[in-house]
């Protein structure tokens, strides 16, 4: 374990810092200034706990995913039990604990897309990339997620790669879409 150069009090990752009373921020400074400032701003608010979800969201936007370390750090900073934070983080679909691929593919499986054959698109993607929904390719290039409904029902079925929306996709166009993002068979 590293010694803590700045804080007098031992933090979560220091020796002797595991006790209940320890509230010092982690000496490794897990979060960048921007997130720390945001958390402190939220703490000024009455009902600061209600900002837990926006804070987790900000962290995920920065790092791409959440880890137990991040959750513990939030627990320390916000004085909320870790158990509660992991309870919240695992409840909502927005939060992920797995790093996503460089190219994030979302297949919308809302009703309109489903009726128009989105399940076939997902199948085709899974076949081509040889991974399942929720997984990442071994080279980290692609990940497939399922979206509940992106609200573009009139363009159904849709696939979203990173921020680009492909509308009225047919199964045989899937390979071309992947190729646009550097996929090689």
């Amino acid at each position, binding site marked *: 374990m590293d010694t803590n150069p700045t804080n007098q009090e031992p933090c979560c990752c220091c020796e002797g810092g595991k006790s209940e009373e320890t509230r010092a921020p982690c000496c490794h400074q897990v979060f960048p200034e921007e997130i720390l400032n945001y958390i402190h701003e939220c703490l000024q608010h009455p009902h600061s*706990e209600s900002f837990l979800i926006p804070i987790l969201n900000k962290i995920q936007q920065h790092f791409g995913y959440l880890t137990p370390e991040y959750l513990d750090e939030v627990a320390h900073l916000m004085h909320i039990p870790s158990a509660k934070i992991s309870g919240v983080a695992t409840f909502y679909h927005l939060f992920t604990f797995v790093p996503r691929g460089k190219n994030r593919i979302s297949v919308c499986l809302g009703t309109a897309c489903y*009726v128009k054959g989105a399940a076939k698109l997902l199948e085709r993607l899974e076949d081509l990339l040889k991974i399942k929904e929720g997984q990442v390719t071994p080279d980290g290039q692609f990940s497939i997620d399922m979206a509940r409904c992106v609200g573009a029902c009139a363009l159904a079925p849709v696939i979203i790669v990173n921020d680009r929306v492909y509308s009225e996709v047919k199964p045989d166009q899937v390979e071309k879409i992947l190729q646009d993002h550097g996929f090689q068979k």
Partner: protein
Amino acid sequence: MATPMEKLLDMRRKAIFRIFEHKFKSPIRITIGSATCENAAGANAVYERFQEWQKKHPTLDVVIGRVGCAGRCDLEPLVTVVAHHQIPVKYMRVNPEKVDKIFESHILNGKVVDEYTMKRQDGPINAERVVTVCGGARCLKNDCLNIEKAFIEGIQKLGLSDRVVVTRSACQGLCEIGPMAYVYPDCVMYKKLTPEIVEHICREHLLKGHSLGEYAWDGERLANRFFPIFGDVHFFGKQLRLTLRNCGVIDPESLDEYLAVRGYEAAAKVLTEMTPQQVIDTVKQSGLRGRGGGGFPTGQKWQFAANQKNDVKYMICNADEGDPGAFMDRSAIEGDPHTILEGLLIAGYAIGAKQGFVYIRAEYPLAVVRLEKAIAEARANGLLGKNIFGSNVDFDIEVRLGAGAFVCGEETALIHSIEGARGMPSPRPPYPAISGLWGKPTVINNVETVANIPVVILDGAKWFRTLGTEGSKGTKVFALAGKVKNTGLVEVPMGTTLREVVYDVGGGIKDNKAFKAVQTGGPAGGCLPESYLNTPVDYDSLTAAGSIMGSGGMIIMDENTCMVDVAKFFLDFTQSESCGKCTPCREGTKIMLEILKRITDGKGEESDIPKLEHLAKMIRSASLCGLGQCAPNPVLSTLRYFRHEYEAHIRDKKCPAGVCSALVSYSINPEKCVGCTACRRKCPVTCITGEPKKTHIIDQKACIKCGTCLTVCKFGAVVRS
């Protein structure tokens, strides 16, 4: 001291002046639709290309702006060209190449590019004027068909057939002045027409261009601004837009434009001349019911919260639109965010809340951005915050993001989510109106409900009551999608039949296939067959038919949709969205889903149907919240109307629609196969063999039943059975 109303009128004057200076002085205005779906369809590239053209012609007086989504989603991006004294021209599916042509031909040379325009069903796009006769139920009783005939005859007699088009609209909510007709682009509304007056109008107005003030209606309704721009297109002409009145009409990022269309006037009126109780009474009298699905009377909900003696109360707008297949809340916020703020302000005043929240899905980034921008602009102009309009009323609004949990649409779960906890429902009572957010009295209203409030206040409860049916007043927005020709947002008066929505507005089924079912209410709703198409859309009729109004998703299914598969899809959704708190929902939906999977895999047993029915009844009566109580609806309604499909899956091991891959096989009819090799080349698992110009064969063992061969065969030789 100036009253709130005087202050508002002053603000509006200044806003209109600014808009006039920047926009309306120009002879040509080009507006480009801009919403999530429009942008997905390429609206940004179109906007940029128009700007490039504008730069190339710096002396040309043209204004380019953005508007929210008009709701004709499958034809996006939409571009509207508005010129003085001309009917606005609507271009559809515009791309940068089309922009070049539109700019060169239309903007520079005044020649409309016909082939890119949205078709006007009843006449040429370059007509000078359009006469729209209201064909709502009450006008029909007043013989509006004769009026329409009189117009057509008068126009023919005067030889104006090429220059004037006659169309018929759905009810425009102006029953007290019917039979009536609009004339565009002059925007004159003629009231209480008789064949004699019509003849007079034809001669003076349509021929010579002098509008006849003595027959014109000088009143104004909030809803009437949409029509002059879009009314001549069939899809829009059959609608009545109250909550979406400004979507596609104003720039959603401009407070000035909202003020110009009587924005915040309802709020000023309420703060100037109404007590909170009077506001509640007005909403009660209007008969407005919650549009989120439950249909609870809005005024009554407000009354419960208002009756609570507590210094702190909260007003929440529920924009956690989790229903797959519904996007009206997103469109409403993206197209007209200030309406939501104004509605919340009025509601907050009525119940005595100083703080409002909008709980919105994080999956709607553009809506969030526009909402936050609107809040900042409203604050900066004293329309939110402390001492609004100098009236000693304080009200502010915060945006809170949902994190993707369907159950958070439920009131108590939503409250827990705002509090920063897991979004799990609590037993009610106590209802949120008594003890809600942080234990304080809280009212939660859906986006559409809130958007109705300014209309109820300005146009009056009495007028609002004239729209709709006995138990359901006003209009309802539906997100029309699935296998229907015209997909998009549709707002119709309550009581319009499903048939009118699907066939008149929606244009019928895509590719002229046979209609099978219409699904309303999302995962909590049900599927209704063709024999129920004459059901009026209102809360009570849909419930009686075995579906629900829900938040307004309406998915159309054709002969190629398997109803067992659809039921499985919804159950799969509710099962994975079940929060797990109560056993009937957590375990019951899981077992129902297992049974449905078994049936679609061809392993169904005779006893499965009674089992499903038994479980459904149990889950319905024993679940804690609406999610569980409604979860069996898709299964029950499909069992009620499409039982034969379940039986075909179980007894004959066949999927009549050919969807469930375990029950489908593909083969090639040797008589029709010409050996073109198309299927062999496209087969993803290369299980088709055959020489060119010889019959091909599918290896049944290797076939993954993807159906590609069926799609690519041009000779109808691939058979699905």
